[in-house]
């Protein structure tokens, strides 16, 4: 690992000031992704700002909203009673990600900030517009089995690797961030970006801003939820395709539904058209098939990931069916 200096601020203000003084610095919380990137020479920060002393570990109920501090561990969040009872989809998604050892280290904010696992991004001998802007994309003409089928650009076809973020996108969460100019709120679905011409930017967080919390509004999705993750082995692998579904069904009618996918785009991929098509309908296999068909319109595949289109089509139907019958 390249050498770096290290500071451990005691307050949010001090952490943000430390970043403002040194733009080559990086915040570190769990470190499970950042240290991995540093060992590979992909990230080369000259200073680490250890934010683990900051008071951002609380999970609390604010009225009907669930407030989750940015430093809450993935394992603690998945096991928390309020999460299991109010937002079981989030708990399911968290437990589908990584291993228990990693979940015991990884934080909510860090999970959101993790980088793509595209092998061309990780291999510093290969071109990658995300790692080094304007160097080209190794994946578009290379091995792209794991890559995006939605929202990609010629500059980057990487996918966001998180499971947690797919659930938070489906649940219409809000991200709270703090910076030198104070605090602001970002809708979760606007937090991560599509690659476009700036694939080096994963999200809309400014360099000197820090995620402080995530908030989930109240919703009726406590019973009919499903996080389906399809991967190359049964556990502890990144998704080829994942689907998060949360439905409100009464009198055999879908009153409200949220669907988001992972492993298919540069950000958690919400399916608003499929959601619209299902709202007010009966929860039948035919309607689910219709919605899945709408969802995969516009999919663009590459040399090795053509299977993802059919996998997405089938996975959406399976997840909807599982959620409806849960």
């Amino acid at each position, binding site marked *: 690992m390249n050498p770096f200096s290290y500071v451990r601020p005691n307050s949010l203000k001090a952490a943000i000031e430390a970043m403002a003084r040194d733009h080559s610095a990086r915040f570190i919380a769990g470190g499970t992704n950042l240290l991995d990137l540093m060992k590979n020479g992909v990230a080369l920060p000259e200073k*680490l700002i250890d934010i683990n002393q900051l008071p951002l570990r609380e999970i609390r109920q604010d009225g009907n909203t669930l407030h989750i501090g940015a430093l809450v561990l993935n394992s603690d969040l998945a096991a928390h009673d309020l999460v299991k009872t109010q937002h079981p989809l989030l708990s399911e998604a968290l437990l589908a990600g990584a291993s228990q050892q990693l979940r015991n280290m990884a934080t909510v904010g860090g999970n959101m900030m993790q980088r793509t696992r595209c092998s061309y991004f990780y291999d510093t001998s290969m071109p990658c517009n995300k790692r080094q802007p304007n160097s080209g994309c190794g994946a578009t003409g290379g091995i792209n089995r794991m890559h995006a089928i939605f929202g990609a650009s010629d500059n980057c076809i990487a996918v966001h690797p998180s499971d947690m973020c797919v659930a938070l996108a489906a649940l219409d969460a809000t991200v709270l961030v703090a910076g030198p100019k104070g605090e602001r709120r970002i809708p979760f679905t606007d937090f991560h970006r599509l690659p476009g011409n700036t694939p080096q930017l994963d999200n809309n967080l400014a360099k000197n801003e820090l995620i402080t919390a995530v908030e989930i509004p109240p919703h009726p999705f406590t019973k009919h939820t499903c996080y389906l993750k399809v991967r190359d082995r049964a556990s502890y692998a990144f998704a080829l395709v994942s689907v998060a579904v949360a439905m409100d069904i009464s009198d055999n009618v879908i009153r409200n539904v949220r669907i988001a996918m992972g492993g298919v785009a540069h950000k958690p991929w919400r399916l608003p058209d499929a959601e619209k098509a299902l709202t007010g309908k009966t929860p039948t296999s035919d309607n689910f098939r219709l919605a899945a068909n709408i969802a995969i319109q516009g999919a663009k595949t590459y040399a090795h990931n053509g299977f993802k289109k059919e996998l997405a089509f089938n996975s959406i139907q399976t997840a909807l069916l599982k959620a409806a019958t849960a």
Partner: protein
Amino acid sequence: MPQGNKPSSVPPKKDKQEARRDFLKQSSAVMALALAPPLVLKAAQHDEAIAAVFEKMPVSLEINGKKMQLSVEPRVTLLDLLREQLALTGTKKGCDHGQCGACTVHVNGQRINSCLTLAVMQEGKKITTIEGLSNGDQLHPVQEAFIRHDGFQCGYCTPGQIMSAVACLNEGHAGSPEQIREFMSGNICRCGAYDNIVNAIMDVKNGGQTA
């Protein structure tokens, strides 16, 4: 990864380092201001701990029940501290990227991958390694079960498997073979001793009566 060794191209800044180390031991921030470059100086007014590039900083850890005052560079992982500085080589370095679980240790009772955390980030924590699991010559029940069930072949992943298994049982995630497989998935065994590992954990879960 030659952590802890200074690359030869970098001249040692011995005087300054040793001076800083001394005063840091006295946990005084005053002298830091005198020695630090201007940018760091400003930071030191707010920051609890600070170390410059290549500079060692003090870390207090309790390792296998023993309180230790150590001095490490910020870039030293907990795994490298254990193996290289403390000769606790029971904890293995497999992939060094959090993919294999060979480096699993407990921090305050929770299992983590020691390769993906910095030693300085564990200030004040209680670390348990495979060396700290047994009670003298009396092996931990999970260690005994691994032997009874032949839960290993080459043995390289075994310390990590055992540390993970102990935590898995403590967490209440050993309810069934399926649940054990899911919650042990962060520990890879290239020899493929998985069936016997699951049996060993089930055995301990069931009070050691099913061997």
